[in-house]
């Protein structure tokens, strides 16, 4: 169904229909460089301020500036609004503002739009002087007409030209105006937000953008026949809104980390962009090394010298840090490694989400290298986990790998503003003399823990080495030493495991038909899906793991209460029943592997590597399909 925008006069006096919803997704899509993302960010911020739950995620093309009007080059943003907290990007988009029909086609092709989505599309292309473009438009409309979309043509260009001479740089604010009217957003708040967003630019820019906002608002008021109403939440505790990478950056500051050694790589780099801005005022340094190996080396050198450092990267960079991670484990140097996972293997899908570095992070180092692997599940956890990681790394004198992913890195959502504590900060390098006779690896026989000596401490002089060594850090010639020091390095991780609590079951702690187990960024989507199927009456619960190595206690016990256990992950697994795939040779989700080996429970898995976050609707569907005793 396709209705041209009704003429201004027509609507002027009659009331638009108001659609009341509790959950809705909006997308603004365009060619890159047209500011769709800025528009969406402001819209999201205003909505959050007004008390809606909000999750925004950017749509980033693989190239910096792909050819214009190209389905594969769509750039934009999705904003999901809710009457409650929104924990993930949701399923499909209900309302789309498209600056050209090709970008729209791109999203359509990825099944991003709801079957009944409403689309506001720039109308200029229909009548564009270039016949090819007219043809493309016609073909696109033909293709789109196959679905039940409501397509409304909007003369954005024409309208913007009344205010600016280059609409490419103005349409986004016009679109924002339309959205403000459609969702009845507080225009003043929107203008404040615009002013904040362009604070670094000249004041005239803000003014012009305010004009465009009003223009879009008025145009919508006069021409659109529908509005949305989404109940808002009570103003609760103060909130902050940011993406996971910004949370990691501020978390590093909160943890008292003072050196971030990195080499650029998507989707991790924006952490260093953020730190590049703010770190220096905290006395912190972002060192961009010549490569990922050097970045790890610099971080290790700093930690050794008494200032625990971290290095941040993504898959290909993690691969390059493998050898240094082994050294840090062997020499017992604290090190925090943040891996913002992307699609793999190899260069893979650099801008897209995946959770397939779990086994590499845990077992990737040649030789036996016991260390800790943890994964935040929310943007808020991205902030707090940095302090935990730094503390564990220093307490255990080992490596802590923090696995986040592109979904958390680019997802933006509000969370309760943390009550900061000075306790989180690292202590300055200990420079007190070392008591005579104390050895640099004076392992406590029972716990494997030992006190770290820091250069500058008189009496602590010794040479640290990656060779097998005894407690005095002397190269081991006696075979028993290697067995013993290996035991000590493993023991301390076991001790740490004893400090962990069994994870809490979301749903029925007492058990049921199916337990869905997840880790990392999928928590919100999984729990939303579980909520839906439970509402349908299915006996399904979920469990989310933050600590992946060592695994928390009590898993086998929890699993035993469910008829079936299945992980849901964003990584690859063979599908049951596929040609040549048997129960013996099936490749399983990476967490599923870990759980099977440690619990011996027949943990099944449902995983996808579509280069996008999991959709709660699809998880719910998978759950129904996988209920023990066949589809419900």
């Amino acid at each position: 169904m396709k209705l041209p925008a009704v003429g201004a006069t027509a609507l002027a006096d009659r009331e638009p229909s108001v659609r009341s919803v509790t959950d809705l997704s909006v997308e603004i899509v365009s060619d890159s460089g047209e500011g769709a993302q800025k528009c969406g960010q402001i819209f999201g911020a205003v909505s959050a301020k007004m008390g809606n739950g909000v999750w925004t995620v950017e749509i980033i093309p693989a190239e910096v500036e792909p050819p214009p009007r190209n389905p594969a080059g769509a750039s934009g943003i999705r904003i999901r609004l809710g009457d409650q907290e929104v924990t993930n990007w949701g399923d499909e988009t209900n309302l789309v503002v498209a600056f050209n029909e090709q970008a729209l086609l791109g999203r359509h092709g990825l099944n991003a739009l709801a079957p009944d989505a409403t689309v506001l599309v720039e109308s200029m292309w229909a009548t564009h002087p270039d016949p090819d473009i007219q043809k493309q438009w016609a073909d696109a409309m033909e293709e789109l007409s196959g679905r039940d979309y409501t397509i409304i043509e909007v003369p954005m260009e024409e309208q913007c030209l009344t205010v600016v001479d280059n609409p490419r740089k103005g349409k986004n604010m016009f679109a924002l105006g339309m959205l403000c009217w459609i969702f009845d957003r507080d225009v003043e708040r929107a203008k404040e937000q615009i002013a904040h967003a362009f604070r670094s630019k000249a004041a005239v820019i803000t003014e012009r953008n305010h004009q465009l906002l009003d223009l879009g608002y008025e145009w919508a008021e006069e021409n659109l026949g529908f509005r949305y109403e989404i109940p808002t939440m009570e103003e609760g505790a103060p909130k902050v809104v940011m993406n996971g990478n910004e949370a990691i950056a501020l978390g590093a500051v909160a943890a008292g980390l003072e050196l971030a050694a990195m080499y650029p790589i998507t989707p991790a780099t924006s952490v260093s962009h953020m730190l590049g801005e703010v770190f220096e005022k905290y006395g912190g340094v972002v060192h961009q090394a010549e490569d990922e190996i050097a970045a790890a080396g610099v971080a290790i050198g700093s930690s050794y010298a008494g200032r625990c450092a971290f290095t941040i990267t993504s898959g290909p960079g993690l691969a390059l840090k493998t050898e240094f991670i082994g050294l840090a484990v062997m020499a017992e140097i604290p090190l925090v490694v943040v891996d913002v996972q992307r699609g793999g293997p190899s260069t893979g899908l650099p801008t897209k989400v995946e959770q397939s570095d779990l086994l590499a992070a845990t077992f990737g180092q040649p030789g036996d290298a016991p260390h800790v692997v943890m994964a935040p599940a929310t943007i808020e956890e991205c902030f707090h986990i940095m302090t935990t990681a730094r503390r564990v790394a220093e307490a255990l004198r080992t490596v802590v790998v923090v696995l986040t992913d592109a979904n958390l890195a680019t997802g933006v959502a509000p969370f309760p503003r943390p009550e900061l504590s000075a306790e989180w900060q690292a202590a300055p390098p200990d420079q007190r003399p070392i008591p005579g006779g104390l050895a640099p690896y004076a392992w406590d026989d029972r716990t494997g823990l030992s006190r770290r000596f820091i250069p500058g401490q008189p009496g602590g002089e010794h040479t640290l080495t990656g060779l097998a060594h005894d407690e005095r850090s002397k190269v081991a010639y006696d075979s028993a030493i290697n067995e013993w020091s290996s035991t000590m390095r493993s023991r301390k991780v076991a001790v740490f495991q004893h400090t962990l609590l069994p994870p809490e079951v979301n749903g029925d702690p007492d058990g049921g038909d199916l337990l869905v187990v997840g880790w990392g960024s999928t928590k919100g989507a999984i729990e939303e899906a579980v909520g839906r199927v439970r509402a349908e009456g299915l006996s399904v619960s979920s469990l989310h793991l933050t600590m992946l190595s060592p695994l928390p206690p009590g898993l086998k016990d929890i699993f035993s209460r469910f008829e079936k256990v299945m992980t849901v992950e964003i990584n690859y697994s063979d599908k049951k029943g596929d040609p040549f795939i048997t129960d013996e040779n099936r490749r399983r989700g990476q967490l599923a592997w870990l759980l099977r080996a440690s619990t011996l429970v027949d943990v099944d898995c449902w995983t996808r590597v579509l280069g996008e976050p999991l959709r709660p609707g699809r998880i719910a569907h998978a759950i129904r399909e996988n209920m023990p005793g066949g589809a419900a």
Partner: protein
Amino acid sequence: MSCSIFHAAHEDQRVFEMSDYQGPVARWCSGCGDHSVLAATQRLMTDEQLKPETTVFVSGIGCSSRFPHYMKTYGFHGIHGRALPIATGVKLSRPDLDVFVVMGDGDCVSIGAAHWIHSIRYNVDMVALLLDNNIYGLTKMQTSPTTPQGYKSNTQPYGSYLPALNPLEATLGVTNASFVAQTAEWVPAHLFATLQAAYRHRGFAFVRILQRCPHFTPDMYDEAVKQPDVVEILTHPEGIVVDGLDKIYKNQVRHDPANIHAARELAQEDAIRLGLFYRDETNPRYEETRSLPRRTAREKMDLLNEDFDHYAV
């Protein structure tokens, strides 16, 4: 490095003897050139009265990289080729420490090449020693980038296929080079004077030390050792001054270490030249460029609160 001065600041009554720097007996082959470098370094520390606890020796992997184990200071025996990034991290977060880096030719010039080039550029204040025996020692005689062309090894038994890479020329080609010298382990006086100049230089001091490996390449520097006439000594008041050396080493070439072009010409392998090729102390030290006032935990929390304000809903 000038940190010793800084240490002198908080007055410290201790007086250090050579023995205060000497670790366990070195397990190098008898006659290995590494022994003399170790001795010269220990003498340097005694002369400069460096504090064992604030001195760090960082190395990679190789015979030469065992060096830190034989010092009674802090030491970091790292992984092959990666000594420089580790040392950079140490100095970046602890400018108060004196940092020495000991590398072999495979360690620095082969697997460590990227870090070598970039460390010259960072110009972090440290002494970087390349113990160049033109061979892989610890792994038992494989060709290294500095192995002379045609020289037989276990991996290239018919002789090395390529001309030797000249570490001095390469170093002098890197933007920001600030101290480039060459010495020989069998000329103790020159070795010591060079180490001292390197230590006193404020910036990244790169010293290539020609080092004998009697076990695998006894012939390598034979000629140079036996015939002082094949060796040229670079002399200049601004350079490395060793009194009385001219008695044995007749070939003295005057070279102003401020002249990069002359330095590059002299660096060519047409003769073995010992001395200071280039020095420029005007280049800023990276750790100084990056050093910032330290904040208390409280200050940080206040600043962090301000940053959070920008994200407040």
